[in-house]
């Protein structure tokens, strides 16, 4: 029964318009939209299974994968070794092995070699949720580092914590300067003091310069996403209404803000040669958005399929982005959940923008982003389950579910996600963030499908496919590939193999 429930779960979401590629595997997904009320109530209940352990990944057993496969592809140890090969200033600490110091950090974290575990424990008490500053990325070109944490608990009385000051102090050499990028506005950071939070005062952290780059998160970001989806689903909109709704949903502003902030962090590291600490409030949302995005911009390694998976594993999953809370219901839900917020989607959108501007620099294509998006919201795999490593351990996710990476990395599967134009680009990719350069990652073409001026089966099939995929490129080759699978066989470019998935069913 629970397994069935999960399949219903999948089916409902599909019915609601979020095309799940592999959903409804028992052929039960063909629900009529006007299903009788009791069935609907049942679906409502089933599609919101509360217990993680009752979720589908715990029951999904594909034949060609082994359970343990893919769970240990990206050990932090391995990432640390790369850093250790270049500098001895950092060490791998397992002080959080029992998740007591910080319940949302993984067991292992990379910290300054000169700082003892004891100091770290004390510093952790000064940071919200115990998220003390840890290394997120080491920039090999000049040895600068990107750190992330949560806000310091200065509170209304401007409390200080010598251990935290020592920890941040050791990162910088004498006379060196670093930047703290606070993803809240200066005012919001100040206000946070009233509730015990706050930000690093200049007097206690003299080497660090604070910059405020407010990024939206939580409820407002979710509202923005819902409004965007609603606008996209209304094909009857006049041009003026469409533009004004696109504007008022502010989604593209959030994309621009996220990209600019990530660029800023990247710029500080690469050009200014200064280390950077990023935090917002809890350090699990916008913080991760900025640090992960900055790495895609800076590090060619993160732009490969496997590197990108490693990045997600390190900077989103292990770093404690609460996927279970943030990615529960997507844009369609009557029960608007308090914790729901599409930060991960915003990240994928930004990566997509990068792929538009640097079409040869990312090894993966749009289809990987789409697949990740789908899986973050509802998956056969355990990779995005739970909110942090602690929960994953408690639920024995790694023992009892399959890893998404294991599935993605099967040669047959991986092939679908490759960008045929990829060629290794060792440079930093600086995107343009002018509004004219930012595109809407168009999806939600469902209604457009029904209102074709005069439809032909072919056009309908093509559009259906776009709908099915959910999110689709606009412009450029991505679009060509999706609109015209035949491009693959274009006689002009026999070497071109576009990332099409011929096995995908085309709904009629």
């Amino acid at each position, binding site marked *: 029964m629970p397994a069935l429930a999960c399949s219903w779960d999948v089916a409902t979401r599909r019915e609601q318009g979020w095309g799940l590629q592999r959903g409804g595997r028992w052929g039960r997904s063909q629900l009529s939209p006007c299903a009788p009320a009791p069935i609907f109530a049942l679906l409502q209940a089933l599609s919101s299974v509360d217990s993680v352990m009752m979720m589908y990944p715990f029951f999904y057993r594909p034949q060609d994968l082994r359970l343990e496969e893919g769970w240990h592809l990206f050990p932090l140890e391995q990432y640390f070794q790369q850093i250790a090969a270049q500098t001895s200033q950092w060490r791998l600490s397992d002080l959080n092995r029992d998740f007591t110091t910080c319940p949302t950090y993984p067991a292992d974290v990379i910290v300054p070699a000169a700082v003892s575990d004891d100091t770290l424990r004390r510093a952790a008490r000064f940071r919200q949720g115990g998220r003390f500053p840890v290394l997120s990325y080491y920039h090999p070109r000049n040895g600068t580092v990107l750190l992330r944490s949560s806000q310091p608990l200065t509170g209304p009385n401007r409390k200080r914590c010598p251990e935290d000051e020592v920890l941040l102090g050791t990162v910088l050499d004498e006379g060196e300067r670093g930047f703290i990028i606070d993803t809240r506005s200066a005012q919001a950071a100040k206000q946070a003091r009233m509730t015990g939070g706050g930000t690093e005062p200049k007097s206690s952290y003299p080497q660090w*310069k604070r*910059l405020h780059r407010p990024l939206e998160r939580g409820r407002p970001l979710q509202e923005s996403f819902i409004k965007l989806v609603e606008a996209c689903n209304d*094909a009857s909109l006049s*041009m*003026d209404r469409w*533009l*004004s709704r*696109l*504007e008022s949903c*502010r989604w*593209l*502003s959030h994309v621009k803000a996220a*990209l*600019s*902030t990530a*660029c*800023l962090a990247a*710029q500080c590291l690469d050009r*200014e040669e200064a280390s950077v600490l990023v935090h917002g409030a809890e350090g699990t949302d916008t913080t991760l958005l900025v640090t992960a995005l900055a790495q895609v911009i800076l590090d060619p390694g993160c732009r490969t399929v496997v590197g990108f998976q490693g990045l997600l594993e390190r900077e989103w999953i292990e770093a404690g982005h609460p996927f279970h809370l943030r990615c529960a219901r997507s844009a369609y839900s009557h029960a608007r959940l308090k914790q729901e917020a599409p930060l991960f989607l915003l990240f994928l959108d930004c990566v997509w923008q990068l792929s*538009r*501007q*640097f*079409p*040869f*620099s990312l090894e993966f294509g749009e289809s990987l982003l789409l697949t990740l998006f789908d899986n973050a919201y509802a998956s056969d795999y355990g990779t995005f389950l739970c909110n942090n490593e602690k929960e994953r351990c408690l639920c024995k996710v790694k023992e009892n579910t399959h890893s998404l990476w294991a599935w993605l990395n099967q040669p047959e599967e991986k092939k679908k996600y490759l960008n045929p134009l990829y*060629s290794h*680009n060792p*440079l930093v*990719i*600086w*995107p*343009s963030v*002018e*509004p*004219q*350069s*930012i*595109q*809407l990652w168009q999806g939600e073409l469902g209604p*457009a499908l029904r*209102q*074709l*001026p*005069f*439809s*032909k089966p072919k*056009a309908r099939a093509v559009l259906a496919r776009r709908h099915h995929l959910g999110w689709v490129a*606009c*412009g450029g*080759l991505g*679009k*060509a590939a999706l*609109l015209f699978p*035949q*491009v693959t066989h*274009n006689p*002009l*470019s026999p*070497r*071109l193999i576009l990332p099409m998935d011929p096995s995908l069913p085309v709904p009629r």
Partner: protein
Amino acid sequence: MEHIRTTKVEQVKLLDRFSTSNKSLTGTLYLTATHLLFIDSSRRETWILHHHIAAVEKLPLTTSGCPLVIQCKNFRIVHFVVPRERDCHDVYNSLLQLSRTAKYEELYAFSYNPKQNESEQVKGWQLIDLAEEYKRMGVPNDYWQLSDANRDYKICETYPRDLYVPRTASKPIIVGSSKFRSKGRFPVLSYYHKDKKAAICRCSQPLSGFSARCLEDEHMLQAISKANPSNRYMYVMDTRPKLNAMANRAAGKGYENEDNYSNIRFQFVGIENIHVMRSSLQKLLEVSGTKGLSVNDFLSGLESSGWLRHIKAVLDAAVFLVKAIAVESASVLVHCSDGWDRTSQVCSLGALLLDSYYRTIKGFMVLIEKDWISFGHKFSDRCCQLDGDPKEISPVFTQFLESVWNLMEQFPQAFEYNEAFLLQIHEHVHSCQFGNFLGNCQKEREELKLKEKTYSLWPFLLDEQKKYQNPLYSPDFSPELTLLEPNTVSFNFKFWRNMYHQFDRSMHPRQSVYDLIMNMSEQNKQLEKDIKELEAKIKQKNGQPDAVLMKEHQQSAHPAPMALKTPPCFKKEQPLIPVNDAVRTIEGSNTADNRYSEFMEEFSKAEPAVVSLEYGVARMTC
């Protein structure tokens, strides 16, 4: 040239248009008879044709010099700072004179000499033959004939000499109808759809006022209707908003009364007039030219400019027209007020959607020659070729190109040409370098003797065809798609960044997929050629009487070509690889393009109160 007061100014700064900290390049400004030239310290040249200059503006003096802003018709905007005010004043005055031409004969086309001999020049002009084009469409035929009524431009000055009309429309009907139409522009054939036997016809508004009738005009429409055996009714599309058409009635003009014409279906489609379009573009450019623009300001500006709404209206009208022909097999008569702006847009876009020929490079040239040049779209007035009434300027042709671009975005495989082709045509519509677009109508062009004194643009575009080819084009990718059915839902219309920011390089993707595919396909073609040559060689060898050799080859018939193929392939690839690399070079990693240096300068100042981190990308203040 008597207008040039100073030919060279040194130490001029060229400001970056979107930089907030006034980054600039220093160089020398030259004034020639035809161009303004700026060469910066790294020897990069910026050429601006005088005819491209739409406006020159001198801004108030600053500490670093006298700012001079030049806006071009191809949407390039340059911002110079000239150190001495007198120089600036001289340049300003010279440019004012040079960019305003009073007579056609002073235009660049009359002095442009591309080193072609006379026969090449004549051949160039013969490249596009409209009689040939009508033959391709299938006229003259049983229903349509060539009329000599306008042989001497006696009936309508702004029409071409050769006009196609229904066989049943006699000369008196033509004459009568033309008298009842604004500027004498009576209904004539624009496009004939062979399979459906339906026609796109065009004319100007009738002089109907509140109640006037004209029997000849009614006969004329009847004749058009009868010339289509597959449908007994026809559509009359008035491309204006209904309100505008009604207002015209007070001036003795107006629109067809359905009661007076038998079997017509009358329809307004609501495209705004040239004045609305002009100010809409103005607003669009104001918004897109703003420094440090936020996404919301951009979108609300885009909305309030109304530009995309107008583009959608034009395409919607074309879709309506195409539906009438493709679905109902009905002929359509299109008009607006004078029948040379909106009518040209709708007729040409309709034909483009219906007929894949117009989606080829040559076909697109033919389409422009036919529906725009020959039918008298007033290029001279609309593009302000001569110093004239600013109220006549309007981006009607630009809108046509933008509509085509939107179609290209929706149907990436359907067009033989690419975006660069559209941009190049747009460039030359304003450049006055070639004779094609000079003047307002064919009669005027003949009087100017353009075919003797100037050159045609088309052969030059054909010569560099490779640049304009769409690598994704496949003419037969789907035969059922000869008819394009665009989806005109609002969110399919996008801001045309490559048109309005063509010269703002930092805004564009840093790697071009199209270039890469083009290069790859070139490479492939070369390889295929090599294979053929080698195969031919093998055959030759096999044909030799040397029995031993022959035997050897026959035994290894298949592996042999493979083995032979390899070395030349590598040889060929070597010169090609750098080409590839050039394409793959990333502009974005160039610090200059990212406007990074200014950040460094800013930062090196000790403890600035405001740190501006900028690379055309992210900016911050703290």
